[in-house]
């Protein structure tokens, strides 16, 4: 195992601009040795490091079966701003992977509903790609999930929609529902306008047989979870990915505490019922 307290070098292979403030970066680990020991599960994150600037926790947006490690990054702080100015070939530091993952074993024969808001789709793309790829495998041993699958995604405007070009491909395995807070009058948009909770009326699903993976702004996740539970989805089958200030990634700095949970090591993916007592409390 590589030492997760020390960053290793990774080279940016290519950059794909997603929206005006978000881009996907594909990384290749420089050291052969670490390449061999580095494995992650969908939902986990890396600490990306720019020497002199600092670190930022960024979820992995590629599938473990992809050749490169991908990060989809929105410009937010110093580190992400710096990264946004980098080019292919540049080297950054990486520590990881850290945290919990989306429980793929939960969905085997159930319906899966993926709910994302804004850049929250990034850690879920890891699951989406994983499912798409395992569906393609023809080996009898591959256990592709067999239930129905839905993606519900909301963004501010059509221009803020991340992976917009990839959604047609997602339709191979998923029913995709998109919405925006505000349609841009300049641009043709034939999807929904309004809150993501509104999309639920379009989806026909069996609540008792559904597993939910969710990531997005906390207010959205609270509203959505409430709605799902009202419709009968068991809280035990709702998984949400949280965001907090992370400094060490290993549960020793205390910055990311959310109630009794360390978001970096107990999360970022939590079973809703494990944290529901703390979700509504202000400034917890």
């Amino acid at each position, binding site marked *: 195992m590589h030492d997760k307290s020390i960053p290793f070098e990774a080279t940016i292979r290519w950059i794909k601009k997603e929206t005006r403030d978000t881009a996907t970066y594909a990384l290749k680990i420089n050291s052969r040795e670490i390449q061999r020991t580095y494995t992650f599960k969908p939902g986990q994150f890396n600490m990306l490091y720019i020497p*002199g*600037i600092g670190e930022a926790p960024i979820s992995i947006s590629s599938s473990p079966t992809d050749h490169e490690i991908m990060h989809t990054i929105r410009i937010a702080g*110093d580190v992400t*701003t*710096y990264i946004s100015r980098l080019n292919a070939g540049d080297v950054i530091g990486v520590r990881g992977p850290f945290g919990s993952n989306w429980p793929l074993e939960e969905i085997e024969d159930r319906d899966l509903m993926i709910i994302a808001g804004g850049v929250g789709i990034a850690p879920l793309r890891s699951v989406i790609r994983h499912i798409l790829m395992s569906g393609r495998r023809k080996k009898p041993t591959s256990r592709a999930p067999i239930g129905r699958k839905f993606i519900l995604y909301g963004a501010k405007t059509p221009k803020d929609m991340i992976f917009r070009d990839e959604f047609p491909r997602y339709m191979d395995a998923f029913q995709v529902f998109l919405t925006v807070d505000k349609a841009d009058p300049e641009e043709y948009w034939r999807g929904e306008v309004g809150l993501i909770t509104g999309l639920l009326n379009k989806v026909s699903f069996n609540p008792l047989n559904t597993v939910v993976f969710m990531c997005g702004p906390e207010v959205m996740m609270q509203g959505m979870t409430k709605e799902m539970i009202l419709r009968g989805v068991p809280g035990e089958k709702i998984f949400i990915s949280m965001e907090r200030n992370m400094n060490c990634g290993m549960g020793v700095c205390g910055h990311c505490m959310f109630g009794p949970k360390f978001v970096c090591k107990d999360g970022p993916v939590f079973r809703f019922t494990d944290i529901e007592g703390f979700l509504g409390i202000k400034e917890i």
Partner: protein
Amino acid sequence: MKRPRIGVFKFTSCDGCQLTILNMEDEILDILELFDIAYFREATDKPLRGQFDISIVEGSISTDWQKEDIVDIRERSRHLITIGACATSGGLQALRNWASLSSYKKHVYPSPDMITALSTSTPISDHVYVDYELWGCPINKDALSETLISFLIGKRPGIPRYSLCMECKRHGIPCILVSNGEPCLGPITKAGCGALCTSFERPCYGCFGPKDDANIESLMRYFHNLGLTQKDCISLLDKMNSYAYRKVRIEGSK
């Protein structure tokens, strides 16, 4: 890389913060290598000309023409940083804000009629937009170099905003407030000085200004219990950062 142009400006102040720059003996050559010091009256006689990438401003605004000058400097500057208690909170001279200018003039100057000044001394940020404020009387040189570096590489300066107590505890300095009953302003004052006074068993008198959301009222209640009068308490706060402490106190009571 083109070296960023720096201007160092002075308003009403004692020059001590500018001296901090000159006192950065180990770093001054690095500064000159990385930056173009284009205006700095204390060190060179280069005339004021052109635009600046960073303007470093010392001193408070206490006369009419200073009000115009600071606007001119702001217009010439991409970034404006204030240094020291005067520039960030009006300085010791802001004590006249709570007194009468004429009586102060009479006490200080032999011929007070020759003095034209505003009745107040105010921080730079009351007049123009300030990009970053460095506190302290005088400022800490490491904080200045951190700020300059941050400008160069494009990050927010990592200057502490927590209390001086945190710095004392890190250094293992025994707390004189708790162990001696000394009225120390450490718990409500920003860290950054390196726990200078307290390491000599002197109570902090708040030259780095109030820390974020300083609970001044609670500490004053405690001082009151130690036997300090209301007046003693106010005179503890009425030093070079009087303006800032009073401001935080009003905001805290809301």
